[in-house]
């Protein structure tokens, strides 16, 4: 077997492995706890008010089922997987009886939209500027951009988002700093609503972009300064091929290939960044949901979000991997 089918099989195998190991880590983590999550949940749920002992006993039983703590460890493992496979994490404890899957389903589109917009924007812009900076090494403006990239890139998502919050929330309050759209607005497809959504997305997108841009910028710049020494670039220059064509079709085009692999590899950490940023700006995605679930002690929701995150990121990586041969014709020959 050769070519695309071989490649396809390899990537699908890798996808399965990522999901498998990821879910196992989640299982191990949840079962390594020294405390009893059932008792803890009951304590959390009953701390504000008196509940009758019968109700608590009932709750304990249903929680045990819910947590998959019934039976031997092997049984628990099997039931854990069956819940992952069906996407059924039971009802949320904090928003009882709304199923966890409904809550995640409501939040996920916000996160996905935030991720897609900010990732595409940063990736395209970062690669473009980085490519130019690698090719036109003497440009002052691009050198300055390099210093900016180097300053912002190492700062973690949380701090950048926090700084933006301070600047636009307290020092110069021109942008909405919280929520996904204006409160009390009806959710329809009116221009007003879309505008509000866009305005609320500016700061989250910006904070993701500030961190991400630097990474792609520096990665692309160093790739390009390597590629300009390749023989095919030297040859095109000897051939008098137009500079713009050399930059586009020879240098950048070849540098894009590893940058796409890089995108697939860093999706996990970009996702981390997104859910952290959401929390800072109270954006109604899974990040905010996750943090509030922890605060209210909603075990099923936390577990649901973790597993959905693992699967979602793996799927996104798989999609990039499957599209990769379009960019690199050599894959088919490997």
């Amino acid at each position: 077997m050769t070519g695309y089918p071989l490649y396809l099989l390899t990537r699908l195998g890798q996808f399965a492995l990522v999901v498998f190991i990821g879910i196992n880590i989640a299982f191990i983590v949840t079962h390594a706890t020294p405390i009893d999550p059932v008792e803890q949940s009951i304590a959390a749920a009953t701390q504000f008010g008196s509940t009758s002992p019968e109700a608590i006993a009932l709750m304990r039983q249903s929680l045990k089922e819910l947590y998959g703590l019934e039976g031997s460890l092997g049984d628990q493992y099997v039931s854990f997987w069956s819940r992952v496979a069906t996407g059924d994490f039971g009802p949320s404890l904090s928003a009882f009886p709304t199923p966890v899957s409904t809550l995640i389903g409501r939040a996920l589109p916000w996160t996905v939209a935030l991720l897609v917009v900010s990732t595409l924007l940063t990736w395209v812009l970062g690669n473009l500027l980085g490519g130019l900076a690698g090719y036109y090494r003497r440009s002052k403006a691009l050198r300055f951009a390099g210093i900016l990239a180097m300053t912002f890139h190492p700062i973690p998502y949380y701090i950048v988002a926090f700084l933006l919050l301070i600047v636009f929330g307290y020092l110069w309050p021109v942008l909405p700093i919280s929520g996904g759209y204006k409160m009390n607005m009806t959710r329809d497809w009116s221009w007003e609503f879309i505008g509000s959504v866009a305005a609320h997305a500016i700061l989250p997108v910006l904070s993701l972009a500030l961190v991400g841009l630097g990474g792609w910028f520096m990665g692309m710049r160093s790739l390009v300064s390597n590629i300009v020494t390749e023989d095919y670039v030297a040859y095109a220059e000897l051939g008098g091929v137009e500079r713009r064509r050399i930059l586009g079709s020879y240098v950048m085009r070849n540098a894009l290939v590893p940058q796409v692999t890089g995108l697939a590899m860093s999706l996990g950490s970009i996702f981390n960044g997104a859910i952290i940023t959401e929390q800072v700006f109270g954006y109604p995605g899974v990040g905010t949901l996750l943090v509030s679930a922890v605060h209210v002690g909603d075990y099923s929701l936390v577990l649901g979000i973790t597993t959905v995150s693992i699967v979602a990121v793996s799927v996104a990586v798989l999609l990039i991997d499957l599209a990769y041969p379009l960019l690199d014709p050599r894959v088919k020959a490997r």
Partner: protein
Amino acid sequence: MSALLEVEDVSRVYRTGGLFAARRVTAVDGVSLQLEAGRPEILTVVGESGSGKTTLARMILGMVPPSTGAIRFKGKDLADIRGSRARLAFMKEVQPVFQNPFEAFNPMKRLDRYLFATARRMAGVEGEAAIRDAADGALKEVGLSLAEVRGRYPHELSGGQLQRVAIARALISKPALLVADEPVSMIDASLRASIVNLLRGLRERRGVSIIYITHDLATAYYVSDRILIMRHGKVVESGEARAVLDDPQHPYSQLLKSSVLSPEVPPTGAAFHA
């Protein structure tokens, strides 16, 4: 007469690809050859890129196990050599010379350390003075001396000198067999002849058998006793070197020979007029 080296119907298949799917490439396909003990000779393996000649050399050196078939050195199957003691005993007798002399030594380390390590570990020489003497003796054999090499780094020597050091190192343990993989292809023409002469001299003076891997028929003709022509992992023709090269029988050998450019200006002017 007993055999020094027996290569019996050896093949090597490589797997490439990821963990979940792979494809197979046959590099060496059913090759057999034999060297007699007590009758040192230079056996040349000739082939173009992809002929499997380097894989064959690596299998004889025990660096790559064969997929099928057996290699025996002095009657002992290489597959049975296990443990570091047995490995060392084998390597004492079979030593390599590599293609790129600039790569054969760690650029960050001094050259003499390889000579001393070989003397200490492979030849079992003990005592600083004796180790230095062993290194010096081997270097003299290749036309250098320890004084010229001691404390020097690889980049301070030319390719020809480095290749001599590499050969000297291989000689310290007094091996019965040298496997030289394209030892002159990275060396400048003005230095090449002396390396090739050195190999010839070693067979005569030291009684070392040499497996000489090359793509160059002209040097093969100059040094070899016997020759093996490989293509796509298979041996297409073998025999006494001059006989084979003077009158090749296999169509591929004939093609190979007719493709070699002679370094003479043809009487008619350029060769490609026809």
